[in-house]
């Protein structure tokens, strides 16, 4: 493929805007604790509340990262295999608590193309997830941009 030929195929274009299957997940105390340890969390009040399983205590947004396996990225047809995360945008609208039952709906929001740059000819694929809790309140909207590229990364 020549470098000026678009990487966006008709199948890829047709997938833009597609919503995936909703998944349900519970904010799990043990996973949140493991995550807090990996991040060397030093907020003693927060650690005590989570260790005690206090479901009324608002926990950090990063606790949503424990739901990553349910926050599946939709498959994008024909996307180059090499990929790295390029950007993340979290919009947080309500508190998150241990035990919250969240519904996550994924969507392929947008695809942009870039010729040149650090990784050569590449695609910026924007994925979006909407998190809604058991009270049907939207708690967060997460947008991730993944760069898909054909050349090896320069490491820079």
């Amino acid at each position, binding site marked *: 493929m020549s470098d000026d030929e678009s990487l966006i195929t008709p199948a890829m274009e047709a997938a833009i805007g597609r919503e995936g299957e909703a998944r349900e997940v519970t904010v799990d105390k043990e*996973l*949140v604790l*493991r*995550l807090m*340890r*990996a*991040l*060397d*969390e030093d*907020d003693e009040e927060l650690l005590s509340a989570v260790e005690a399983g206090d479901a009324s205590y*608002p926990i*950090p*947004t*990063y606790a949503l*990262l*424990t739901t*990553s*396996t349910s926050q599946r990225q939709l498959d994008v047809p024909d996307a180059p295999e*090499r990929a*790295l*995360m*390029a*950007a*993340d*945008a*979290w*919009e*947080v*609208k309500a*508190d998150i608590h241990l035990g919250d039952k969240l519904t996550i709906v994924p969507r392929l929001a947008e695809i942009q193309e870039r010729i040149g740059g650090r990784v050569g000819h590449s695609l910026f694929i924007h994925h979006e997830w909407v998190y809604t809790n058991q009270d049907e309140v939207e708690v967060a909207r997460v947008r991730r941009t993944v760069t898909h590229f054909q*050349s*090896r*990364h*320069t*490491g*820079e």
Partner: protein
Amino acid sequence: MAYDYDDLQEGTELPTEHRTPTTAQVEGFCNATGNAGPQFLDPEFAKDKMGLPGPIVPGNMKQGFLDQYLRRHFGRNQITRLQLNHRRPDVHNAEMTIGGEVTRAYEADGRRMVDLEIHIDNPQGDRSVRGAATITFD
């Protein structure tokens, strides 16, 4: 100590802090989040397949560090927006410097809010993450 809204104005710099994520921490993070990308833990895959200098720190782990950094400075006030651009990979066991600066303090819809520029620099002084955040005060 957490900042009050009245302490902040455009240009207020937050103190920097340093984090050095070890391979064990990255393993713990991947385990807690179910993130199994081989570029995070497999040196051969990272170097040979991806062309990276070595296994890298997951982007969302750096997001966790920035979330912690903001909570350290803004206490229980809510981080309502956290936006990150990953500009360069960070490798394990390398010191990262985290910092931030207020870009705007304002009231909107009867709520007091502060916008910030936030970042992570690698040991060479290159910016590996450039981001923005909004804090909404109670």
